[in-house]
């Protein structure tokens, strides 16, 4: 039973809040249902057929009574709805300084890339007490990254990025699994989620074999795959410069403006005809079957690093 700690313990403040919510909700469920059970049993005994009991004036309708037992439980649950929705909304609001870790799911393994370029498979190391944001992509079918100790899961959907963030605060080793049915080996697509003290995490990062940071790997791809031929400084083609693109609003051809987030950059690479930046020709080819999800994530990391003025990803 001690193994259960890998599943059930609360590894974050969010997990504790979810448990509190669940406990309170359970109490409400008891309050709403136990009267039904008790009364049914009592009536079945008291009003047995053939038994003498006062059955005078049985009511067969009472609108106020009925309305009240429709409304009161509903209002009770609305309180919980507000509570749960608040907690849920927090999950969509990652702090800006969160450590950005990329996740790629494929049948049947989890691949993680840390910003410094460290990669691991089926294990995720994170520092305690610091917010972490996962950006997740799938190579094939829908998977779902589930870390029970955080009370969190998020589907990983092919064709787009989904994300999940948390601040784990209890060092330890927990379970990490795939929750969305994804084919033959779904039930063995899992591993460990390891929360370390910040110092231990630094040490762990140092030990791993790293060729390049993510952004640097992206910079290499940017040249190798010919992006720089069009987007580079010396290009003859009329293509938008990508420096400072991330987070900026981009006016689109045919009206409309989008913010250049991860998803937009990804779509620009894989489905370039979808959203054309205003004023540019439709010439960018698709890299659909050329780049793997990991490589796209590296390119995205590289383009993100191209903040105006500080092309840090370029240094090598």
């Amino acid at each position, binding site marked *: 039973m001690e193994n259960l700690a890998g599943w059930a313990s609360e590894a974050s403040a969010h997990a504790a809040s979810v448990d509190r919510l669940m406990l309170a909700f359970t109490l409400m469920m008891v309050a709403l249902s136990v009267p039904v059970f008790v009364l049914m049993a009592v009536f079945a005994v008291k009003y047995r057929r053939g038994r003498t009991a006062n059955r005078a004036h049985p009511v067969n309708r009472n609108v106020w009574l009925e309305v009240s037992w429709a409304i009161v439980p509903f209002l009770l649950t609305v309180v919980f709805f507000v509570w749960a929705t608040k907690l849920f909304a927090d999950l969509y609001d990652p702090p800006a300084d969160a450590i950005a870790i990329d996740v790629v799911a494929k049948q049947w393994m989890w691949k993680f890339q840390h910003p410094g370029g460290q990669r691991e498979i089926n294990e995720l190391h994170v520092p305690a007490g610091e917010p972490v944001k996962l950006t997740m992509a799938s190579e094939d079918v829908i998977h779902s990254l589930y870390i029970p100790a955080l009370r969190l899961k998020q589907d990983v959907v092919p064709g787009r990025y989904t994300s999940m963030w948390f601040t784990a605060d209890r060092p330890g080793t927990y379970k990490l699994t795939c929750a969305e049915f994804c084919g033959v080996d779904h039930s063995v697509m899992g591993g460990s989620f390891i929360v370390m003290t910040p110092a231990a995490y630094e040490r762990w990062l140092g030990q791993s074999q790293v060729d390049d940071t993510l952004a640097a790997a992206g910079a290499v791809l940017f040249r190798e795959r010919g992006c720089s031929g069009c987007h580079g400084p010396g290009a003859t083609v009329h293509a938008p410069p990508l420096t400072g693109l991330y987070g900026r609003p981009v006016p*689109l*051809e045919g009206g409309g403006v989008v913010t250049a987030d991860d998803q937009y950059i990804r779509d620009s690479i894989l*489905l370039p*005809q*979808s*959203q*054309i930046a205003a004023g540019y020709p439709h010439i960018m080819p*698709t890299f659909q079957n050329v780049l793997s999800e990991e490589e796209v994530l590296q390119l995205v990391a590289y383009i993100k690093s191209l903040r105006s003025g500080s092309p840090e990803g370029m240094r090598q």
Partner: protein
Amino acid sequence: MSERIELHEPFSDAAQQHEAGMLGMYVFLGTEMMLFGGVFAVIFVTRALHPAEFVAASQKLHVFIGALNTGVLLTSSFAVALAVAFARAARARLAAGLLVAAAGLGLVFLGLKAFEYTLEIHEGLLPLFSRPANFSGPVEHLFMNLYLVATSLHAIHMTIGVVLLTGLAWRIARGGVPLPGRVALVENSGLYWHFVDVIWVFLYPALYLAR
């Protein structure tokens, strides 16, 4: 006229039978509507996801052939509506003739559709059939897939309708369907035909007229 209507189990009078038949037919058409509703939802979502490419792809369709076809279908519906009116007035030959006309227009529709498909095959635009296919991008491919699915599903319904109407006209002409005793048969076949027409009335703008 109601005394001359044939009664079936378990109905006890003609009005009840007529209303039940009508309601049943409308509910059935409702299910067909929901069936196509799924297709329409897919079309709308695709348009919402890729507005510009959707419009570009739509513009490659033969909008005037589509318009002509809409006209043909509307006219056939008119013929069927007339046929029902005459069937109720027990003018069997006229009704049968109009049904044949409607079915004929249905064939014209299918013929034009087939012609359109061949044009698209040559343009490299029709999935499955064009070899080699020649799409400007994935979304155009997706659009044409949708187009093929939606129009062929509609064409299947049309074919059923044509068979239904011709068979009915034939039986009326041979006196196999006493009128107005079994006018419900004509009415219900008519409802089906009109319904297939209505589907096209929505498919046409959804696919051809996206701007």
